[in-house]
């Protein structure tokens, strides 16, 4: 067979895949996805689990380890037939939470943790890169087989060039069909259909080669059984620890391998497809492996011992001259490699762009992104190219010389480190971000130390001495015998230690830490997914109903505004009426309008509810809660402010009232003052005018008038003196000259000073001088002024026939009270409250010369002295009580 034929067949095959994928995409766009998304296609798409490792490597694996190769199919078989336990929940969560990858699952479960998403992505990339290299290697090797088989007819079979061409072609395919759009669902109809076709090709190819070997070469089932039992295969003992460990690892891997998660969960169209896959996929796996032992046994007996068992599937038909069968087998292997690489590249690219590129991009650019879609698409395309480039680099670096199966288990064990966090997260609400991060990182570290780094061989990362004696001669740290546990197979050793450390870290970290609110909400939604989500639901997105939007907008914006907005939009779209098409532009505008009313997060959630038919995500809810909290805080501030304002207003009102009262007081005071001043002024003017016109006035008459003028002027002076005095006292400008004095002396002085008033009416004064013998500290002149005023009043106004004044001094508690009680008619009850007011005169008959300020001044003076003057009713006459604080008395004593 010529190289040209091989290349053209490959190219035609790839072209066919392109056509199928393109056609499926078109059909999906037009909605004709019914049979494209049948349970059969779903099951076949799962077959990317069977990579070139399976197609070529299983035979090589079987020829070295006997039945052990079955473990990598038994694990997934057990997981699939137990779909009701775990897969069903995983798929339901993936659909209800719109999970896009295994990294997204873990990040989302643990409170949308960017750190965890990044960690899982890194582990996935590190774990998958050797696997990609493995696929490149197997395709390159299979090209090489044909080159060796027909020497001379090939141009130079440069393996690296072949690998570059293969990697480049796969990158183009993956970019074309894997990054066509950034759908929220991350479904790729074209790719899924293409890999379903590839699944059929590889199954058919392997079954064809197997049937040829069993019936064409060996001559029947009985013959094959005899050959198997006679072959060296039959003497290979079964390693029990590997049997257990590898079943566990492969079973866990099918849940968490990025590409398997992509087809199992992300590309799942209908939960019920899982029911079909639960038996159909194990059947597919059994069919893929049923001929492996026969091919290995026959190959070992027929082909020379130097032949690579990894390539028996190709070399056996070639050795028997069946070129077309070999070509079919080649296409089968090619299919296995391409389908795996394409899906893995898409899955990894999604993870890299969503969990590494985007967070970095967003954190580096402070402003809001304009077109995130373009960034996403570009980063995914670059990621696909980058992932394949990594695979190529690994292939070139590792030299492509090792057994296929060995690389596979290194990869599996690494990726499985994600499993405790993933499965624990969907069954245990107590799992926390800290626990998941601890488990994943510790497990990955142990895996890297015990399996990944040693897998490069002695002298590459670890020296031979490190393998033999441990790093720095620490024996219990030997990579293949941690803590001195020797004799274990390296893979089993790594699985046991990494899973033990991983689970311990996960459990302890989760138990010891406290989850954030988002984490707890997400945990509840994941673990109780069947309580919160409805049954299987189609993914057909219900179109936004303009009417529903209008109803909602009316509620928020008000009917007229909402109708205007909708009508305007309809006019722009060239429609009549109120219901425009719900284009993305319109939805954006509406959301902005609504956001003005209810906040951005709420508006987004509300539009999303109607337009996309999704449930509100936890983040939306948290954002709503944040906004609500802000609004509440704002309103609390407003309330505080309004309280403060009303307090101020109250104070202002009071101040205003006081000012008004003061103004009234001032007015009345001015009125009284002018009245008081005018009366003497009028008489002064009148009498002075008379004097001026008096030519022939008698001297006696003139004298009398001048005396009147003199008296009135004196009255005015007294009035003004009293006013000044009062003003000084009221404004606190009066200075007090405190001195020690005996109360008796003050009273005596006051009595002496008033002796000249009404001397014709004898006022009998009764006092007890013993009681008055109290030393006080006060302004003597001022106190005497008060006493004089009171005694003068008694002299002036006491209307008793035999007026008498009794002065009684008493010590009451901390005060000294001096009562002045006369035996007159006293002050009427209704007047008692006003006698201390300014210009208060009860009668004016005998009040010539009184300004009515005396008692007001007394009150001011007593306040200044720290005492008080009050009217004492019920004493059988006018009675005033002057109270002085006793402190001043004691201080003096």
């Amino acid at each position, binding site marked *: 067979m010529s190289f040209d034929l091989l290349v053209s067949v490959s190219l035609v095959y790839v072209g066919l895949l392109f056509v199928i994928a393109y056609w499926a995409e078109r059909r999906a766009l037009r909605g004709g996805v019914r049979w494209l998304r049948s349970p059969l296609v779903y099951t076949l798409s799962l077959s990317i689990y069977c990579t070139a490792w399976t197609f070529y490597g299983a035979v090589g694996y079987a020829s070295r380890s*006997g*039945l052990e190769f*079955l473990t990598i199919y*038994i694990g997934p*078989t*057990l*997981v*699939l*037939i*137990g*779909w*009701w*336990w775990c897969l069903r929940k995983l798929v339901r969560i993936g659909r209800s939470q719109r999970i896009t990858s295994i990294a997204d699952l873990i990040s989302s479960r643990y409170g949308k943790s960017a750190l965890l998403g990044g960690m899982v992505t890194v582990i996935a990339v590190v774990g998958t890169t050797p696997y990609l290299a493995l696929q490149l290697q197997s395709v390159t090797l299979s090209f090489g087989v044909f080159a060796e088989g027909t020497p001379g007819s090939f141009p130079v079979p440069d393996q690296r060039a072949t690998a570059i061409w293969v990697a480049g072609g796969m990158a183009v395919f993956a970019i074309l069909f894997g990054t066509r759009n950034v759908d929220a669902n991350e479904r790729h109809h074209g790719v899924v259909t293409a890999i379903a076709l590839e699944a059929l090709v590889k199954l058919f190819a392997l079954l064809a080669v197997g049937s040829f070997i069993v019936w064409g070469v060996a001559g029947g089932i009985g013959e*094959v*059984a*005899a050959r*198997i*039992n*006679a*072959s060296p*295969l*039959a*003497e290979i*003992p*079964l390693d*029990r620890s590997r*049997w*257990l460990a590898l*079943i566990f690892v492969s079973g866990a891997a099918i849940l968490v391998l990025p590409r398997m998660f992509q087809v199992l969960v992300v590309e799942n169209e209908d939960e*019920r497809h899982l*029911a*079909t896959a*639960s*038996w*159909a996929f*194990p*059947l597919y796996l*059994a069919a893929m492996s*049923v001929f492996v*032992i026969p091919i290995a046994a026959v190959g070992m007996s027929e082909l020379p011992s130097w032949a690579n068992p990894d390539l028996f599937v190709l070399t056996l038909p070639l050795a028997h001259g069946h070129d077309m069968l070999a070509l079919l087998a080649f296409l089968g292997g090619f299919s296995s490699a391409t389908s795996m690489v394409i899906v893995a590249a898409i899955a990894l690219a999604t993870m890299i762009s969503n969990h590494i590129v985007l967070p970095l991009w967003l954190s580096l650019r402070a402003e809001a992104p304009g077109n995130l879609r373009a960034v996403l698409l570009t980063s995914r395309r670059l990621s696909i190219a980058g992932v394949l480039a990594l695979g190529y680099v690994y292939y070139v670096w590792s030299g492509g010389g090792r057994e296929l199966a060995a690389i596979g288990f290194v990869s599996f064990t690494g990726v499985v480190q994600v499993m405790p966090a993933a499965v624990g997260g969907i069954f245990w609400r107590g799992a926390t971000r800290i626990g998941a991060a601890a488990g994943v990182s510790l497990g990955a570290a142990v895996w890297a130390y015990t399996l990944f780094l040693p897998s490069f061989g002695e002298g590459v990362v670890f020296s031979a001495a490190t393998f033999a004696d441990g790093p720095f001669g620490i024996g219990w740290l030997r990579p293949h015998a941690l803590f001195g546990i020797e004799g274990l197979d390296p893979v089993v050793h790594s699985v046991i230690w990494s899973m033990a450390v991983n689970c311990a870290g996960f459990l302890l970290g989760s138990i010891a830490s406290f989850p954030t609110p988002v984490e707890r909400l997400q945990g509840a939604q994941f673990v*109780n997914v*069947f*309580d919160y*989500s*409805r*049954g*299987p639901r189609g993914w057909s997105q219900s179109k936004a109903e303009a009417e529903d939007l209008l109803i909602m907008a009316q509620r928020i914006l008000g009917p007229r505004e909402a109708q205007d907005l909708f009508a305007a939009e309809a006019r722009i779209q060239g429609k009549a009426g109120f219901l425009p098409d719900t284009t993305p532009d319109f939805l954006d505008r509406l959301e902005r309008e609504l956001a003005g009313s209810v906040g951005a997060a709420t508006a987004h959630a509300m539009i999303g509810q109607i337009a996309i038919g999704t449930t509100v995500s936890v983040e939306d809810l948290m954002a709503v809660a944040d906004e609500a909290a802000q609004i509440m805080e704002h309103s609390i501030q407003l309330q505080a402010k309004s309280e403060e304002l009303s307090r101020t207003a109250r104070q202002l009102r009071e101040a205003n009232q006081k000012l008004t009262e003061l103004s009234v007081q001032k007015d009345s005071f001015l009125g009284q003052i002018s009245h008081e001043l005018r009366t003497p002024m009028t008489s002064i003017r009148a009498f002075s005018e008379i004097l001026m016109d008096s030519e022939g006035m008698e001297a006696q008459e003139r004298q009398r008038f001048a005396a009147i003028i003199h008296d009135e002027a004196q009255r005015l002076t007294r009035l003004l003196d009293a006013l000044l005095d009062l003003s000084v006292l009221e404004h606190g400008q009066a200075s007090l000259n405190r001195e020690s004095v005996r109360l008796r002396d003050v009273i005596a002085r006051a009595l002496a000073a008033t002796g000249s008033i009404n001397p014709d009416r004898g006022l009998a004064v009764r006092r007890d001088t013993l009681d008055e013998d109290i030393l006080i500290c006060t302004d003597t002149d001022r106190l005497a002024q008060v006493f004089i005023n009171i005694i003068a009043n008694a002299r002036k106004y006491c209307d008793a026939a035999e007026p008498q004044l009794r002065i009684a001094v008493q010590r009451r508690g901390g005060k000294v009270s001096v009562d002045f009680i006369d035996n007159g008619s006293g002050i009427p009850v209704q007047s008692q409250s006003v006698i201390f007011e300014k210009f208060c005169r009860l009668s004016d008959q005998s009040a010539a010369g009184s300004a009515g300020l005396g008692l007001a001044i007394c009150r001011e003076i007593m306040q200044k002295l720290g005492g008080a003057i009050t009217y004492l009713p019920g004493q059988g006459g006018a009675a005033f009580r002057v109270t002085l604080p006793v402190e001043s008395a004691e201080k003096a004593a």
Partner: protein
Amino acid sequence: MNGPRVPLFLERQSYRRRRLVDASRAVPVFGIILFFVPLLWPQPEPGEATGLAERGIYLFLAWGLLVAVTGVISVRLQSRLQEGAPEERAEGKDVL
């Protein structure tokens, strides 16, 4: 977690569906037992054949049995899932 009104007994249809779910849950347990039988096989002495063909046939028979049982249960379960009301399909509650 359960609502206030959880029926204690179910009608025949739902009862059958729940037993199918039980069966579906039990299959992997049998699968584990069947696939762990090789751990009991005696190790061959050096140079002695093990009857590899028969052992392989056992594993594939077990495999086929599991596929058949799972197939029967899944197909029945699937048809009942389609019939059931949405909340019936959700199957969150453990009712008999």
